[in-house]
């Protein structure tokens, strides 16, 4: 990069990291592109630049980090992909989840409460495993909806479900961490 360009013209995180705009990503490629970008705009290379160019380098570095953090996490990536396609996932205000799904969430929560109350590390471990399977299944469906079928509202509904599983996963981990105290 002889002359430092402004990142203003970059449309989105995918373009910034030179990745195809889709949900299924080659994560090794993503890592590689991220490292290349980071090397190009590393502060060590800003030493001989003007103040203005140094500021642009910093902007690139910040945007690159943000793009990478978003794209490497599947849930954040799906949410972002929907956003740039103009679909709001309505995670703040849509409480109309399928009843079956919510009843399942209650079952999960009850099991978690029991396992945590009994300080049963094995039961918590089984929950972790089951949750992983459940999440993988939902992410596969999400990939189909986003990349193959282009059913964006259905994908947004699935993102809302996955948001619950994310929270559940964090709470299971908290319960496991509490056992070590």
């Amino acid at each position, binding site marked *: 990069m002889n002359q430092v360009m402004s990142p203003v013209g970059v449309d989105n995180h995918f373009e910034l990291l030179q990745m195809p705009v889709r949900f299924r990503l080659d994560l090794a490629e993503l890592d590689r592109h991220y490292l290349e970008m980071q090397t190009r705009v590393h502060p060590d290379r800003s030493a001989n630049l003007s103040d203005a160019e140094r500021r642009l380098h910093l902007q690139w570095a910040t945007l690159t980090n943000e793009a990478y953090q978003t794209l490497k996490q599947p849930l954040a990536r799906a949410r972002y992909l929907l956003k740039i396609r103009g679909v709001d996932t309505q995670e703040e205000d849509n409480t109309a989840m399928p009843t079956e799904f919510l009843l399942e969430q209650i079952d999960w929560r009850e099991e978690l409460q029991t396992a945590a109350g009994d300080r049963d590390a094995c039961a918590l471990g089984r929950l972790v495993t089951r949750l992983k399977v459940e999440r993988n299944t939902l992410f596969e469906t999400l990939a189909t909806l986003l990349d193959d079928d282009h059913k964006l509202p259905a994908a947004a509904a699935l993102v809302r479900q996955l948001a*619950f599983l994310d929270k559940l996963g964090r709470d299971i981990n908290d319960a496991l961490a509490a056992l070590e105290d």
Partner: protein
Amino acid sequence: MAYNDKVIDHYENPRNVGSFDKEDDGVGTGVVGAPACGDVMKLQIKINDEGVIEDAKFKTYGCGSAIASSSLVTEWVKGKTVEQALAIKNTEIAEALALPPVKIHCSVLAEDAIKAAVSDYKAKSGTAEDGYKVCQSAA
């Protein structure tokens, strides 16, 4: 964040925690959830022959404000007709518990749970939207 005393009281001593049989015809079950915080709330109402809610139970997995909001509404709906219960607004819940702005969605969840429970009950009892028997006494 500092919770106010009423929230803490409802959180530490939640009223009406539990379940009714959701297959029971006189029971309406509402389950709602907020993706942003991962809270899940189940609220059940038991309605007698006069169309009055004689008991209510809840199970909420979430933050203190969500538990307090659902505990409070189970107390409020008892003795009310389903129509009166539907009139409960999230703003009243938020005000009663002095919820801070970031926790307003917990009161929205509680209001949505009542609505869901009532519509489940109506669907089961087969009463039409425009003329349900439970309202006749109030008319």
